[in-house]
Every structure is written in structure tokens, then in C-alpha cells.
């Protein structure tokens, strides 16, 4: 007998329910409103009185409406067929919903029950297996989708039987397992998992050490993110958070990309819907949508499911990581998620922390980021979740609770800067304030030396020093005036401008410049650093500016040309000619 209840009070989407039996924290219940069932989650229990947050509008809800508790927490359904789908925060397939407008109480099964999958067994009768052991695999958009022992299974099982290679639906039994007590359990291709619990089925979680290529120069060259690493992008509005995030998601070298559009603009999600099916994954040649899952809970959709959406996305990411895949998870924006927490906390009349956010905000963010990571699975394979979240700091002030809470846990920091955005220096990542902690990891450096070149790290540090010097000199020029400083100062400043314009700035809307493979980044960095170390002859500071503008112009034309194409090489020769003019 499941627990039932009656509505006792309503404040916006917070509903007080009197329950007639046991209720669990975070349990899911449905409130019946004239036949429409509204999903809700338990937030607080005081005796028989239960406070629940409703994932829908509560308009028209009355005292006395019936409530049914479901006996489980908010779960996602995991199985083949998740890729290429567009879900809402509660994992309803948006494409299956009818009507132009969202209708409350309309929920659906996220997977296709009819579709037949070509199943190949990986386990054999007699094999000892446990939760997350690979039983077989199906081909999902060219990814080897592993069918695993459900994560909820405890202890060791023996494979009693497994179906031969063939076509099966997700609900067909593919294996029978026998538990330690001799009980048989049937397993199909679908399993469920509560989103707020991490899926921990790996053997070991080492420090991330591999480079995750994004094709964005200001990241890969200046502040690289590691596979399985965490990063965050804070920035005031209009500094290009979303453009940068979309660029990373299109180009990153990942098997699976999950985009959680959390409380952001619907038109930005539409951009993904329109663009991704047309774009090609630069690493595999497959259609970009084939590797992508979009969780769209845009800003006007109910606020409680906005909170759920990031957890839904993370749980799906963990599912694919357990298959030994490289997952990239992007959440835009984690501030909206924090605001959803704040709205509920306020309605529950909890004592507020800073800026009225809940007291445990920082811990909640920390727990969430800790679910990312590079892992060794129990079968020795590796998998990873690289997580990049954006933060929308109120008033552009980085000393606010969400930014501070995130800064403690994320290892890469890509600081978007208003001043850079204002002068259209995109991506507006400040190269000096931003950091990547992974550069300091010896195991990462070792990987980089092999992947790119042994002197790469030294060159990158050299570049950063030049940028820093350029900035200092610029400040002096501003104070003392152009002719108040030696001509050398201008040369130093303009060398840092070459780095800025040629390496750091990148045109996300130009088909060639938008994505720069690491080999090309290496070529350009070598080229630019060579220029930076050259000595030039100048008489006046006016000559310096004109001359370096020409250099920048030619280098930018190179960025716009196909790598090593005739056009590219012509510009390269032109550059050499320009350099020869004044080189000492």
C-alpha cells in the first residue's frame, strides 16, 4: 500500500501535504488536480506534514486534492536511445510531447520501447558479474553502448544465461543472473537510477592527466582542461559565455556531449536544435547530433525541474562513463540552478545565507562538481566526465556565493571580462586572471610533452609572461604618455598585442578560425613566440604601432585560411617579408 495524502496548503509551487503513512525525504509524489497528475518532490517532513515542491504550475490547486507517494526518489531511465534526444529537466522527451505549448502533467517514457537494437553479448554463462559489469553491447549512433548489470544490484551474481547476437527491444530480457542465494533475476536493457545519488561503479579515480582538446586556442594553449577535469566560466551578461560553451561542445574531442540548458534562453537551445544536426563532429566525421543529448529546461519552464535538470544530465553522463566513454557535460548556467535552490529555500522560510542563498549552497555545488572525473572501471577500461559549468554572477561581481562556491571546487577558471568583450576581443577570456590547475600536475605535463612537444609548457609560460609584461607596460604608457616612455616599451606592448590578436582572439563564427586543432595551435604559437623574441629597429613609437598592425593583419589572414593551403603559405611568405623589413 503506497502512502496517500491530502493537500493542506499552497504557496506558489510549495505545497503542504498531510500524509497517512511513511514518507521519505526527496520521495516523488503526484498531486491529482481534476485528473491531471502533477509531479512533486518531498523537501521537508514534520510529523504527518510534508512540504513538497511541485515541478509544475500549481494554478487551480485546492486544499483537499489527493496526493499519492511513489516510494522512490526522482529517477532517470537509462538505456540505449538516449543519444540525439532533447529532454526536459525531468527527462521527458520534448519531441514526443504534443502541442506547441507545454502542458502540465504531460509526462512520457524517455526511450523507444519498439525499436530493435542489434545486441552482441560480451559476458558468458558462468561469468561472475556485479553492478555495472558489461553484459553485452548495442550500437547506438556508432557508439558501443554497453548493456550493464543494473547499478542498483548489490553483491556478486553469476550469469545463468545470455541471449545470442540478435535484435531485441530494450524491454526484452537479454540475460538471467543468479544471485548469491540462488535466486534468478532477469535483466533487460533498461535501468533506473535516482539522480541525486552519484553512480560509483569504478575502481579508481586518479587525478586527470590527459588533455581534452577543444579547438579553442585560449583554452587549449593558455589554460588547458584535462579529460575528466572540471572548469567554470563566470562572466557578466554579454561577455560570450554561451558562444564559448557552444564552441567547446561542437569541437571538443569527446564521445558523448551532454548539454544542460538550465534556466537559460529558449532561443539558445533552438540554436543547438538547428545547428547540431547540420554540423559534423571534427573528430569522427559523424553528425554532431548523434553524440549529443540536450537537457533543455529553459528559464520560463518550472523552476523546480530546473533544479532537477543538472542532476538528470549528470546521471546520464555517469551512465555513459560506466561504459568506458569520454563524456563532456556542459551546464549553462549553474547560477540558475542555485537560484532555483534559493527560491525554494525562501518559500520554506529557511534561515538564509549570503544573498539569501541557502546556507549549504557551497557544499551542494562541491558535491555536484565532485561527480565529474576520470575513472578506471573495474574491468580496467577508462571513462571520464569532463564538466564545464557557466556561472552568471549577479552584477558581474565575482565575489558572490555561486562564483565563490564554484571557485573552490572547479580546477579551471575561464574568466570572461567585460572590458575585453566591450572592445570585441573574443573569446573575452582574460588570459592572466584565468587559470588551469592541471598545468601544475606533473602527470599532465608528462602527457603534454608527449602529445605536443617537450618544450610546450615552457613556451606557454613564456607567452603568459609576455602578456603580463605587455599589460604592465601598457599601464605605464597610459600614465606617462606615448612619448614619455622608451620606444622599447611600445615594442613590448605590441608584441603582447600580437599574442592577443593571433593566439587568444578567435572568430567563433568563421568556419576555419572557429576550430584550431592542436597541431595548428603549436605552429601558430611557435610562429608568434618567434616574433616575440625578435629584435626590431624603430626610430619612433608611431612606427612601432603601424608595423605591428601589419604583422597582426597578416597573421590574422593566416588564421582565416586553411592550414598549409596555398593561401596560408602565401601569407606566411608575406609575413617573412614584413619581418625582414625591420629585423635587426
Amino acid at each position, binding site marked *: 500500500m503506497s502512502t496517500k495524502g491530502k493537500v493542506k496548503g499552497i504557496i506558489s509551487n510549495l505545497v503542504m501535504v498531510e500524509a497517512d503513512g511513511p514518507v521519505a525525504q526527496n520521495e516523488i509524489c503526484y498531486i491529482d488536480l481534476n485528473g491531471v497528475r502533477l509531479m512533486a518532490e518531498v523537501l521537508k517532513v514534520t510529523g504527518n506534514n510534508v512540504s513538497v515542491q511541485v515541478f509544475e504550475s500549481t494554478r487551480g490547486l485546492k*486544499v483537499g486534492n489527493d496526493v499519492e507517494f511513489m516510494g522512490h526518489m526522482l529517477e532517470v531511465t537509462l538505456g540505449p536511445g538516449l543519444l540525439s534526444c532533447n529532454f526536459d529537466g525531468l527527462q521527458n522527451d520534448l519531441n514526443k510531447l504534443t*502541442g506547441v505549448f*507545454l502542458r502540465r502533467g504531460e509526462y512520457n517514457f524517455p526511450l523507444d520501447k519498439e525499436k530493435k537494437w542489434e545486441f552482441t553479448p560480451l559476458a558468458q554463462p558462468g561469468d561472475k558479474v556485479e553492478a555495472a559489469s558489461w553484459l553485452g553491447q548495442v550500437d547506438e549512433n556508432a557508439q558501443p553502448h554497453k548493456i550493464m548489470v543494473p547499478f542498483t544490484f548489490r553483491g556478486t551474481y553469476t550469469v545463468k544465461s545470455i541471449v545470442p547476437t540478435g535484435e531485441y527491444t530494450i524491454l526484452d530480457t537479454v540475460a538471467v543472473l543468479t544471485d548469491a542465494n540462488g535466486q534468478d533475476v532477469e535483466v533487460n536493457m533498461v535501468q533506473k537510477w535516482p539522480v541525486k545519488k552519484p553512480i560509483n561503479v569504478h575502481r579508481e579515480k586518479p587525478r586527470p592527466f590527459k588533455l581534452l582538446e577543444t579547438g579553442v586556442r585560449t583554452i587549449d594553449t593558455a589554460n588547458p582542461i584535462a579529460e575528466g577535469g572540471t572548469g567554470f566560466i563566470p562572466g557578466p551578461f*554579454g561577455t560570450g559565455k554561451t558562444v564559448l560553451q557552444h564552441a567547446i561542445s561542437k569541437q571538443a574531442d569527446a564521445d558523448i556531449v551532454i548539454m544542460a540548458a538550465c534556466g537559460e534562453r529558449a532561443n539558445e537551445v533552438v540554436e543547438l*536544435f538547428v545547428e547540431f544536426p547540420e554540423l559534423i563532429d571534427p573528430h569522427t566525421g559523424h553528425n554532431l547530433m548523434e553524440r549529443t543529448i540536450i537537457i533543455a529546461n529553459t528559464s*520560463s519552464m518550472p523552476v523546480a525541474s530546473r533544479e532537477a535538470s543538472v542532476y538528470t544530465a549528470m546521471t546520464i553522463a555517469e551512465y555513459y562513463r560506466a561504459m568506458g566513454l569520454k563524456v563532456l557535460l556542459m551546464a549553462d548556467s549553474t547560477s540558475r540552478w542555485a537560484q532555483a535552490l534559493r527560491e525554494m529555500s525562501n518559500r520554506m522560510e529557511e534561515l538564509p545565507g549570503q544573498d539569501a542563498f541557502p546556507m549549504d549552497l557551497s557544499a551542494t555545488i562541491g558535491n555536484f562538481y565532485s561527480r565529474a572525473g576520470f575513472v578506471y572501471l573495474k574491468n580496467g577500461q577508462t571513462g571520464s566526465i569532463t564538466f564545464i559549468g557557466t556561472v552568471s554572477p*549577479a552584477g558581474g561581481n565575482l565575489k558572490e556565493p555561486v562564483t565563490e562556491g564554484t571557485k573552490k571546487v572547479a580546477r579551471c577558471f575561464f574568466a570572461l571580462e567585460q572590458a575585453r568583450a566591450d*572592445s570585441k576581443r573574443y573569446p573575452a577570456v582574460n588570459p592572466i586572471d584565468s587559470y588551469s590547475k592541471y598545468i601544475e600536475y606533473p602527470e599532465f605535463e608528462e602527457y603534454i610533452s608527449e602529445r605536443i612537444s617537450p618544450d610546450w609548457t615552457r613556451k606557454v609560460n613564456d607567452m603568459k609572461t609576455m602578456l603580463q609584461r605587455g599589460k604592465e607596460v601598457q599601464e605605464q604608457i597610459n600614465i606617462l604618455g606615448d612619448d614619455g616612455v622608451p620606444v622599447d616599451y611600445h615594442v613590448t606592448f605590441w608584441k603582447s598585442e600580437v599574442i592577443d590578436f593571433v593566439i587568444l582572439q578567435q572568430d567563433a563564427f568563421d568556419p576555419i578560425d572557429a576550430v584550431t586543432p592542436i597541431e595548428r595551435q603549436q605552429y601558430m604559437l611557435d610562429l608568434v613566440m618567434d616574433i616575440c623574441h625578435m629584435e626590431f629597429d624603430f626610430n619612433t613609437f608611431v612606427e612601432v*604601432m603601424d608595423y605591428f598592425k601589419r604583422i597582426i593583419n597578416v597573421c590574422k589572414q593566416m588564421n582565416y585560411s586553411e592550414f598549409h593551403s596555398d593561401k596560408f603559405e602565401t601569407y606566411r611568405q608575406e609575413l617573412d617579408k614584413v619581418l625582414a623589413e625591420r629585423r635587426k
Partner: protein
Amino acid sequence: MATKAFQKIYTKITQINKATCTLRATGIGNDELATVNGALAQVVKIMGDEVTLQVFGGTEGIPTNAEVIFLGKAPSLKVSDQLAGRFFNSYGEPIDGGPAVEGEEREIGGPSVNPVRRKQPSELIATGIAGIDLNNTLVSGQKIPFFADPDQPYNQVMANVALRAQADKIVLGGMGLTNDDYLYFKNVFSNAGVLDRIVSFVNTTENPPVERLLIPDMALTAAEYFAVDKNEKVLVLLTDMTSYADALAIVSNRMDQIPSKDSMPGSLYSDLAKIYEKAVQFPEGGSITIIAVTTLSGGDITHAVPDNTGYITEGQLYLRRDSDIGKVIIDPFRSLSRLKQLVTGKKTREDHPQVMNAAVRLYSDAANAKTKLENGFDLTDYDERTLAFAKEYSDKLLAIDVNIDTTAMLDTAWNLFAAHFTPAEVNIKQELVDKYWKQ
């Protein structure tokens, strides 16, 4: 509101404060409307048999024995083609002396559009103002506010944009509008002979502030009728959204909610997003474009209202008085239209994106030169030329009195480049320079 025979009348109010009153009642739905001595109110909280009502017109003079009648429905608007050309108050009642509108009754503040059923906006909205069309191109289905100080002529610019935008319908939502501004809009639209395309919902400063909370939803319900049922291109003007947010703060304060930044309710982002996200391009051709005004206090955009708005809307437009030319211009640095790349260089000439960026960059160099000048440093020849360029650019392209088409804007920009700079200084893709540089 007409009462019906079977409705129960309550006459015992237990609690009254400035915006709400509480009474014991049963069988009441959340968000339901009621009348309190004839004044419209809405259910905002139910705890057991205690129902709290937010009285839109304020609770002044409401006695504990006031007659409370629950209407059994959420706020709604009767929609039909008869809306066109009419002026209404916050409740959707005519204020132009005309008859009540007949039509289908729809609840306001309805659900949002399923994101997968939206179409990507792709139609350019031409305004003739180069500060907008060239640098911050608007697209149908977009939502964008003017961030302006109260003394700036935002209502005039907005009216100009509305008249030139070639929308099938213009819905005006006026919140805390001064009577003078209300009459200004009425006159402009009537002089332009477009009154039959306008639907107006107006709450002036003479009306109670809490009533304003209904205006955006009323306006957008009307807009949805024309955009969805009639497949029309609808332009919604919301002025001023800061007054709307102030009303939200008043209500949340009266309900003892914990305020977050700048005394605004913690749900401000969601409240504003619910309105702005109604901007949409439907696949069937209808669209809702929202142009709003958020007034700033002393240009402070870190205040919670402009800050949250900036994160929701697809860009923002700033006005600024340029003392060099004595005109109001659209500030090219801080203004931004996030959807412009969907149309620039696609619906406009190929050189549009690069010309736009180059011009803004040169304008920014001019700003640096100006700083140097103010600090008493000598200017280089390049500095002098950027200053000359900036003045002309401001006058011929940024000023709000410009009215030319986009191709003419681009040609003007190329002329200015050639008059003041070398191609290397302008730094544009060589192919475009070869094609468009004015010898």
C-alpha cells in the same frame, strides 16, 4: 465583474495589511480571482482554510466585513480581432469609452512554448536606425530592452522602431507610464494612422502599482492570440519593466518574503524570464518580438533588475548623448543584439559582420585617443584620424535620427574607412577589402 447566483459570499476578513487580506474559506483554487467589496484580488497563499488574497488596487478602506466573492477562475482576457485598435486597463477593461470585447476567454500567464516547437528566428527587423540595424540588428522573435536613464528619449525611439518595424500588430504594455507618455504613444500611433494595428494595456502612475503585475501577461496573451491563432508578426512594447519589478518587490515584501539583492524577491529572475520568454518565432509564421524598457538608476546596470534582465534578454540597447555632435546615439560599446549573427551577412550584405566590428574597433581607438587628449598627452596622426572618424561615424550612423537601409549604412561605413584609414588599419578580410574599399 458580474456575480453569479450560486457564488458564496464571505464577510469575515481576519487580517489586512497594505496589499493583502486573509479570510477563512474552503474549496478555493490557487491563483483564483476574487472580488473584495468589488475590488479585484487574487489568491496568493492557502494554508488549510486560511486564504490570503492580494488586492490589486490596494487595501485602503477595506473593512473586516467586506464582501468577498471568489470567481473560480484565474485572471483572463477575452481575445478576438476586436482587440485591435483598443485601449485597456490592467484588468483588460476598455478605457477608451468603447464597448467590451467579445471573444474567447483565455487565462493569462499561460504555459511556455515547448522549445522543440520553436523555430530559430531568422527575419530581420529593419528600423532604419543604423545604431540598431548595423551594429545591433534586431530579429523577429527576439526580446531586447533599452537600458536607459529616466531622462533619455527611450519611448520616442521605441515608438519609431515600432512604426518602422512592419509588424502586423503592435501590443503596448504600459506599466507606471506617466499620463503624458501614455498620450504621447496614443498621439504618435494615431498620427501615423496605425491605430487599427495597436492594442494597448495601460497602467499609469495614477493607478495602484500592484495592478501593473497584470499588464505583461495581459499584453502577451493578446499577442499570443494574434501570433498563434492568426499567424501574425506581433511586436510587444513593455515600458517600463523596472516599475513592474518594483511592484513585485512591494508584494513580496508585504508577504514577509526574505528579500535577496537590492530588496528584490529571490524569484525575480524566474518572474522576468516568464515574461520575456514569451518572445518566440512560431513555425507557422507568427512571431512575438518584445522590445522593453528597463530604466536604470544613474546608469547602474549591476542593480538586480537590469542585471537579471541582461541574463534573460537577447541583448540590450543603450542610449547616450554624444556631446561631440549634440545628438543622442545608440552606444556601440555596451549595446548588443545576441541574435544579430542569424541575419547579418545572411539577410544583409556579406561584408556586414566585419564592417560592423571594424567600425566599432576604430571607434574604440578614438575613445582611447580622447582619454589621451583629456590627460594632456600629444596625439599621434592615427589618433587624430580616429577622432575625425568617430565624429562622422557618430553623426552619420550612430545617431537615432538616421533613417537609411542597411546597404546604405555599409556603404557609408566603407566611405568613412577610406576617408580616414588605410586597409591595414581597418583590418578586414582581404577579399572584402578588394571588393568594397572605396578608392
